[in-house]
């Protein structure tokens, strides 16, 4: 560990300047922006914009959809990747093919995969063939409420591998000896899972959970590819609202909506950080 302070500057300075310029200054500048009226004088209006935007039905719709989609996507992604990595950990070292194939989608450009998705979920496509095979009626996957399923599946398909890899690294770092000892002592599989596996992977699991949420809030990309700038109502996310407001040069509304969203995001993560601290203290 170095303590000579001036030596750190050449390493930090270029990055810090950029972060200040492109992240920090815009962040604080935006707060000011969301409290002015956007006219020529740019008068200060306090929280006027906020109460306007919060009463806007499209903003409410976007917020509701974003929250609903994230509430499905983030926990779903988390649980699914945890289950998969536990399974994968049990068959190691045979799982290399699976590990590679599950991670590959994370690097694939979503728009290139989109064509296949549109084919699969077509009214006369393979997914509906499967549905009728199991006795169901054909579903209009590409419109209305049902459009959420392809979007969520695309999201899961793309992000699953990343979470599995992090989980797997954490699981593999647990020494086998711990389990052997526990088995000798007569601990059951579930007991082992709760007393050994869980406490040891809490830090990694927490980070995966956070990343699941960060990615879930970015589901706009998938929505945009499948539904365009004005998708059907069940898919109209907050980001659609912000992008469309931006297109109309209504910058005040964009920033106001953005900070309302940021507030929710930070509140959520604050609660999560707090819970994780509590959980770790409780476990150790």
């Amino acid at each position, binding site marked *: 560990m170095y303590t000579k302070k001036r030596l750190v500057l050449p*390493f930090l300075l270029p990055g810090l300047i*950029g972060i200040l310029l492109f992240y920090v200054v815009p962040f604080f500048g935006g707060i000011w*922006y969301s409290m002015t009226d956007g006219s020529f004088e740019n008068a200060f209006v306090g929280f006027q914009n906020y109460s306007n935007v919060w009463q806007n039905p499209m903003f409410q719709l976007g917020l509701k959809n974003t929250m609903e989609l994230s509430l499905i996507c983030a926990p779903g992604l988390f649980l699914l990747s945890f289950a998969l990595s536990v399974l994968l950990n049990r*068959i190691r070292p045979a799982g290399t093919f699976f590990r590679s*194939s599950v991670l590959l989608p994370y690097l694939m450009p979503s728009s*290139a995969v989109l064509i296949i998705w549109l084919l699969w979920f*077509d009214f006369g496509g393979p997914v509906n063939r499967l549905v009728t095979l199991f006795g169901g009626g054909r579903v209009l996957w590409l419109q209305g409420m049902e459009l959420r399923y392809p979007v969520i599946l695309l999201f899961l398909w793309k992000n699953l591998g990343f979470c599995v890899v992090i989980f797997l690294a954490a699981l593999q770092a647990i020494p086998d000896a711990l389990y052997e000892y526990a088995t000798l002592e007569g601990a059951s599989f579930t007991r082992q899972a709760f007393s050994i596996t869980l406490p040891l992977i809490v830090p990694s699991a927490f980070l995966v959970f956070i990343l699941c949420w960060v990615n879930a809030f970015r589901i706009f990309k998938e929505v945009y590819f499948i539904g365009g700038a004005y998708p059907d109502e069940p898919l109209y996310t907050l980001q659609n609202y912000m992008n469309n407001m931006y297109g109309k040069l209504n910058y005040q509304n964009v920033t106001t909506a*953005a*900070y309302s969203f940021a507030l929710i995001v930070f509140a959520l993560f604050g609660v999560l950080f707090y819970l994780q601290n509590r959980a770790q203290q409780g476990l150790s």
Partner: protein
Amino acid sequence: MRKQRGVRFRLIQGFLGVLAVLMLLPMLQTFLYSFSSISEMKSYMGTRGSFDESRWMDPHLIPNMFSLGQYHQILITDNTVLRLFVNSAMYAAMILAGQAIIIPAMAFGLSRFHFPGRNAAFFGIILLMLLPFQVTMVPNVLTLRSLGLTDTIWAVVLPMWFAPFYIFLIRQFMVGLPNELIEAAEMDGAGTFSVYLRVILPVCRPILGAAAALSFAESWNLVEQPLTYLTTRGDLQPLSTMFNQLVKEKTGFEFAGAALYILPALFVYLFFQEDILSGLQLTELK
């Protein structure tokens, strides 16, 4: 814990195998379809979007006849896709080049030095990492405009050079490195810079490779940034924002386009695969 490879083991293996094939299917199908002739794909894609209960799309698995027609179209006859492809490649290259200089150095500064405000800076980076892009979108446009950068490639490239997520990723790895590593190098008379270049960077190879691959994936899939920073410059748009346009037009060569689009990501993945699998180890926040 050596387990007998019983029925259960085979079951898990079978289940994961099927899932793995399903995960790879979209790419496989894209490559297979890209070797169909344009007319074949046009008529096949034409059967999409029919709401007739009595009709199905053909269970089309492999091309009826092997053809390089689609590739001939996008590589030689019509250069729309190729031009967008070159744009995408340019963004990815410029973003990665800048990140390679700035991000590991910043992570090194944040992980191996003691200075006042270090924890605050790290905490700030975590907060920025969590922010959705749209939160700072408008002020960022204003910053870029006052620098005269909107509607230039720099508007997309510059902010990405300082992407907080990769700083976080690499810093987490560097924090875990043993002190002896640095001390031993210093005993041999190495200065800070040569420790960084000759000791730290080589040791961090897995995480640097992983970060490079992930960052490439992000740069190859840019959507929000070009849409907001390059509103008047259609000629500077990358493949990622224009590709679905191509699909909507039902050109018949969309699969060769998709294959061409996927290919670099595939190569990057194969090249950095080991690094990603061994480097992505996120442990607790320290």
